[in-house]
């Protein structure tokens, strides 16, 4: 019983996992108390630059944190080696189950395509950064550093995933000479001289930015007049944001897969007593319980889809229609998909029907930009809409689409002014928040800020922020 027992059991289970085809980073398990666990959950990393918002989340976690819909905590960090926390107040069998669950996450981190370029040394890097930030706080004062972090966190979800964390600055203004061989029909098009047609001059770097820029923090750290410490802090926030992005867009598939894996492994592991197995079954059913009528547990949804995949591919394999087995297919899916493609490819009509999924809406819609957000205007009467699968998927994915933020791009630098454009038409912007965020950008940029957006009828409106403050044109 106790630590040794748990760790030995997890080691056995890791062997089972390997046989099934899982491929994990080595995992270091730590037994921690509830407080440290809560801290890790609210900071997202064991040591991370301090900020009051983690404190708020810590307090919140203290009241409501949970794994799925049961009161079990687990946390594992995407790192090589992976670090996982087990709560020392959990029973042994729960910690063994958490260990099996962690192996699922670990495989997912190592093999899922979205995580390919993530920083596998983040735990240590973040700790080192936290020390650096502490030093800034010591030298410059908490208020100053904290304010800059507020600014950073206001913009940190506006990333450009495809351009990546590490980017070069745009090319400086220069004329590029392109020469090319005369084409077959060039002589038909030319009028007079022939050689000049083969040389083309192209000016680059004339416009800043050369193309609309999605990565707001990257642009500002590189092109706004900032001090070194400011650049450093914003860059820290930006890099951590890239680190967390794959986690945000794989919540359902990652939790679903890990729950599926822990169930498979625990079912096969035969060194536990009947009582322990019964306790495991209870806790497991809590973790993958459906949730409430209007809020679906991601652990449950993902688990159900993976169970469905395994059944189907096992049958197909039996019939000789597939050369891979169910579990092989499950691992393949876990390696290749994110939440969006996972739901689109594997949440079938039949399964959605079986799970009873439906779309709902509010009869009394909230007024856009309603100043007093009291309950009456926020929630009206909830009405049943339909069971349309595409809409179901869209509604499930919406909160994480574009990292949960509106699409905002920097389109032009015009003199001192920075011009931004809000490009999605799904909704208007919250003006109160917009004002404050534009003020933050104004502080960094040191010149006027202009934001083109639209009202409910999609008519263009322009927000300004200059030394006189916020105004609407």
């Amino acid at each position, binding site marked *: 019983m106790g630590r040794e027992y748990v760790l030995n059991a997890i080691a056995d289970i890791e062997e089972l996992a390997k046989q099934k085809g899982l491929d994990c980073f080595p995992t270091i398990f730590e037994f921690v108390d509830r407080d440290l666990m809560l801290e890790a959950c609210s900071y997202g990393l064991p040591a991370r630059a301090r900020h009051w918002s983690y*404190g708020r989340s*810590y307090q919140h976690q203290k009241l409501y944190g949970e794994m799925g819909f049961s009161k079990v905590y687990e946390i594992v960090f995407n790192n090589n080696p992976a670090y996982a926390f087990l709560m020392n107040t959990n029973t042994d069998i729960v910690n063994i189950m958490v260990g099996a669950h962690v192996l699922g996450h670990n495989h997912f981190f190592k093999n899922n395509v979205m995580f390919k370029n993530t920083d596998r040394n983040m735990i240590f890097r973040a700790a080192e950064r936290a020390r650096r930030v502490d030093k800034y706080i010591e030298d410059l004062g908490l208020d100053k550093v904290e304010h800059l972090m507020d600014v950073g966190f206001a913009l940190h979800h506006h990333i450009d995933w495809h351009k990546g964390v590490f980017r070069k600055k745009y090319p400086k203004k220069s004329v590029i000479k392109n020469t090319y061989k005369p084409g077959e029909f060039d002589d038909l098009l030319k009028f007079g001289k022939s050689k000049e047609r083969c040389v083309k001059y192209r000016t680059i770097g004339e416009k800043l930015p050369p193309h609309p820029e999605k990565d707001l923090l990257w642009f500002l750290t590189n092109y706004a007049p900032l001090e070194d410490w400011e650049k450093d802090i914003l860059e820290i926030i930006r890099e951590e944001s890239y680190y967390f992005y794959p986690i945000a867009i794989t919540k359902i598939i990652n939790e679903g897969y890990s729950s599926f894996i822990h169930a498979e492994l625990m079912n096969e592991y035969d060194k536990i007593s009947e009582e322990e197995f019964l306790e495991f079954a209870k806790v497991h059913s809590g973790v993958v319980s459906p949730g409430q009528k209007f809020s679906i547990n991601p652990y449950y949804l993902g688990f159900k889809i993976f169970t469905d995949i395994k059944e189907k591919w096992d049958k197909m394999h039996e019939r000789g229609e597939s050369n891979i087995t169910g579990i092989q297919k499950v691992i393949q899916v876990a390696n290749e998909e994110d939440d969006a493609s996972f739901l689109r490819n594997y949440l079938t009509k039949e399964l959605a029907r079986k799970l009873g999924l439906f779309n709902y809406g509010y009869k009394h819609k909230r007024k856009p930009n309603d100043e007093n957000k009291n309950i009456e205007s926020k929630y009206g009467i909830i009405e049943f809409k339909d069971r349309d699968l595409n809409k179901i998927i869209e509604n499930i994915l919406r909160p994480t689409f574009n990292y949960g933020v509106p699409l905002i791009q920097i389109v032009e630098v015009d003199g001192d002014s920075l011009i931004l454009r809000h490009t999605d038409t799904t909704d208007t912007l919250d003006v109160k928040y917009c004002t404050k965020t534009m003020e933050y950008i104004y502080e960094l940029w040191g010149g006027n800020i202009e934001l083109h957006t639209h009202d409910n009828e999609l008519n263009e409106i322009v927000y300004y922020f200059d030394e006189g403050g916020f105004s609407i044109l």
Partner: protein
Amino acid sequence: MTDFADAWAFPRRGKRDSARHAERVKKAIRENLRDLVTDASIISSDGKKKIKIPMRYLDNYRFKHGDNKNTEGVGQGDSTHNPGDTIAHDGTGEQGGDNKSGDQEGEELYEEEVSMAEIIDMMLEDLGLPWLEKKDSAVEIETENIKFTDISEIGQLSNVDKKRTAYENMKRNAKTGTGNAKIKNIRPEDLRYKVWEIEKEYHSNAAVYFLMDRSGSMDDDKKYIAKSFFFWLAHFCRTKYNHVELIFIAHDTVAKIVPEKDFFKITNSGGTMCSSAYLLALEHIEQNHPPDMWNNYVFAFSDGDNFSSDNKKCISTVQDLLEVCAAVGYGEIDIDSFFGYSGSYHWSTLHDEFSKSIDHPRFLTASVQRKDDIYDCLKQFLGIETHE
């Protein structure tokens, strides 16, 4: 195997950062007192309730969509419904999915609750009844003051004495190494804390008269302003002083002493003769609160649309009141006139009359044009530095 708790050598940050968050909540309240002072949900509360501070003062700001996007979600259940069927009401269906499906959305659930008493403390901590004098009397009013009286090596971080800490630090630095008395590497052993004692200060009796115009021209907006002011004044008097008598007088052409609970529910009608209220206050003072034993305060609110024939009488009564009072305050609510033609036909308001005829340091006037001015008005009346 290493243990994180040791290996990372980081102090536990959760508690420290949540304390910092709590500090920010307080700061946000302070910065938004102007709004909160006129917040209807506070004015109508019973003073014991916890009030919720709107999130918009405390959030991590960012670009955020308006509200439309949350109007659809996914639920689960097998029962057959037709599109448009009502399946739940407000509270029963918590907003779908949001609180579980992502940290970003979850943030919106944070709300801060603060008790009424705490807010009043924050608002009114620097204020006091002006020109309060010690008078010979049987009943005394007392106030509690916190005074820092000593320095200690242990204490709460919020009470760090920066000067002494810096001094200790320099002393230690001077002792070690190069002998330079510089401020650097402040260590726990350098910290010095202030130690406080609660001092009771005794004052003489005080009586505060609340005079409100309830005439026909005091429409809802104006009454709201007057009532907000009196609400905070009443809370202020009760929070800050243990023994203080409050007298509520409402008037149109005649004045009447009313119980407190009726005072805040008063409706409007009739003409305006402000002198009636001042006279009633004067009589009450003369009968019950002789100035040699009492600190008397009269605070009146009106829109200044007084019968012009009555203005003279007002002036003389106020002058009489000043003889028996520590201070007389008059607030005039100067929002769009009830009659709507004040722009073209402007008659002299009571405020103008007062300022022409009364020049007394303890006669305080204020003009309130917007709800936002109430906080300034409170500061103007109660924030006077009069202590020797």
